[in-house]
């Protein structure tokens, strides 16, 4: 009948196109009321890159999140971004935004330093003001500073930023190269029930822990992790575009044939982050998008083994494949 098993698996995932050479760029301009327009080329596919990049811009500029508009509408206005793939946007576009904000701050500090009787290096930007680090009472509000730069100095308060890992082609003999900035880490724990007569695997619980470095927005990071867990579950148990592989006999033609998990299929999920800063990511961020969907399948397969002693080396572990493996084990 039903047998319980526990398993776990880990994994890591690189940030950015493997081999580098994938730039992201950002432009920030300030309006005279101290609000900002952040223009990027990165596409928001639902993961929330506009949210995260607006948070980074706001943090750097010392203004509120709601004060940042994000524009990523089209390729004429937006600066270059290689794309929203390879778990790269938070890290690479995030650094581009930081660099753009730095340039904005340079313009502003240069404009107001005389008013504050200090050199630009002696100033800092925080909570809507520019102030002298050593004497925080000597300060000017960001709207006033942008106003001065715009209307008194007549300079545009604009910053540009880019971030890119230079291409790393690799040694033709050994393949040695530096393919990525750094890695994110995943560890997933699964508990399953295996029905020994039908082969049905019931995943009871998934606990997923990630080191995504500094988490820029915990709610969005959880969302990625939860969606990744569901996709990993689908990969482990049901999803297959070519069920009769390698024959193309039964290619699914609708969502009634290609199964993805429903709300009923996703077990209770527990998501945790440890935040070990990365070397070079914005505020120590790593990535979360893709690595969140990888370790569930092996964790579930290892749990199935713990339950009934079979190795499901071929995914997905459909009821039929599990039952066949159980029968083979019994026969052996």
């Amino acid at each position, binding site marked *: 009948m039903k047998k319980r098993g526990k398993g776990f698996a880990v994994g890591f995932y690189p940030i950015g196109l493997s081999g580098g050479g994938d730039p992201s760029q950002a432009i920030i301009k300030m309006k005279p009321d101290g609000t900002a327009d952040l223009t990027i080329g990165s596409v928001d*596919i*639902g*993961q*929330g890159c506009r949210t995260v990049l607006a948070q980074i811009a706001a943090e750097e500029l010392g203004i509120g999140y709601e004060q940042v508009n994000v524009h990523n509408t089209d390729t004429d206005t937006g600066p270059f971004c290689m794309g929203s793939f390879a778990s790269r946007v938070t890290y690479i576009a995030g650094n581009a935004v930081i660099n753009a904000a730095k340039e904005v701050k340079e313009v502003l500090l240069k404009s107001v330093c005389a008013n504050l009787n200090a050199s630009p290096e002696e100033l800092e930007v925080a909570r809507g003001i520019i102030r002298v680090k050593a004497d925080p009472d000597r300060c000017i509000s960001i709207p006033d500073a942008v106003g001065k730069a715009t209307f008194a100095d007549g300079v545009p308060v604009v910053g540009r930023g880019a971030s890119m890992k230079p291409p790393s082609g690799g040694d033709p003999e050994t393949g040695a190269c530096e393919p990525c900035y750094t890695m994110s880490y995943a560890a997933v724990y699964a508990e399953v029930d295996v029905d020994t007569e039908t082969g049905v695997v019931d995943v009871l619980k998934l606990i997923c822990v990630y080191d995504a470095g500094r988490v820029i927005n915990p*709610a*969005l990071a*959880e*969302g990625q992790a*939860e*969606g*990744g*867990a*569901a*996709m990993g579950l689908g990969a482990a148990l049901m999803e297959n575009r070519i069920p009769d592989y390698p024959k193309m006999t039964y290619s699914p033609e*609708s*969502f*009634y044939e290609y199964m*993805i*998990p*429903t*709300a*009923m299929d*996703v077990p209770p*999920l527990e998501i945790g982050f440890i935040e070990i800063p990365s070397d070079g990511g914005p505020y120590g961020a790593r990535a979360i998008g893709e690595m969140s969907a990888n370790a569930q399948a092996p964790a579930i397969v290892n749990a199935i083994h713990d339950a009934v002693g079979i190795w499901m080396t071929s995914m997905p572990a459909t009821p039929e494949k599990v039952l066949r493996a159980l029968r083979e084990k019994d026969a052996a």
Partner: protein
Amino acid sequence: MPVLELKVNGNDCQVLVEHTTSLLEVLREKLMILSPKMGCNTGDCGACSVILDGMLVHSCITPAMVASGKEVITLEGISASGELHPLQKAFQDNHATQCGFCTPGMIMAAKALLDENPKPTEPQIKKALSGNLCRCTGYKKIVESVMAASADNPASGS
């Protein structure tokens, strides 16, 4: 061509349709009500979910003529007063949207549930939403949002 008369989000509408036209096509292409989405056109994903005379339906496989004389509510119609529906607010506060494509149908499915059962349990919510696929969220924050909306609004209705 048959004439279809129906009420959508409180407005009386008259449209010419073919006998095989789906309700989704009428909503999107004739009435320009765009929150119901076409995700599969086979009734499997739920992105087109609307409420027809109090019943949740997949508008893509509901023949438009079947809605004759009936009332359709779409996501646009649940905050007509200008205030967010408790479910909308809960979806926002609980970060339940990612790409947003399933969201209109998901909220309508949740509304149909709460209209019938103002205090559903978590398994009841999951069952009620199981015809609405979401590839982004893993459903957790969606289910939490429905729980939150039902807790805040004991007599949740439109």
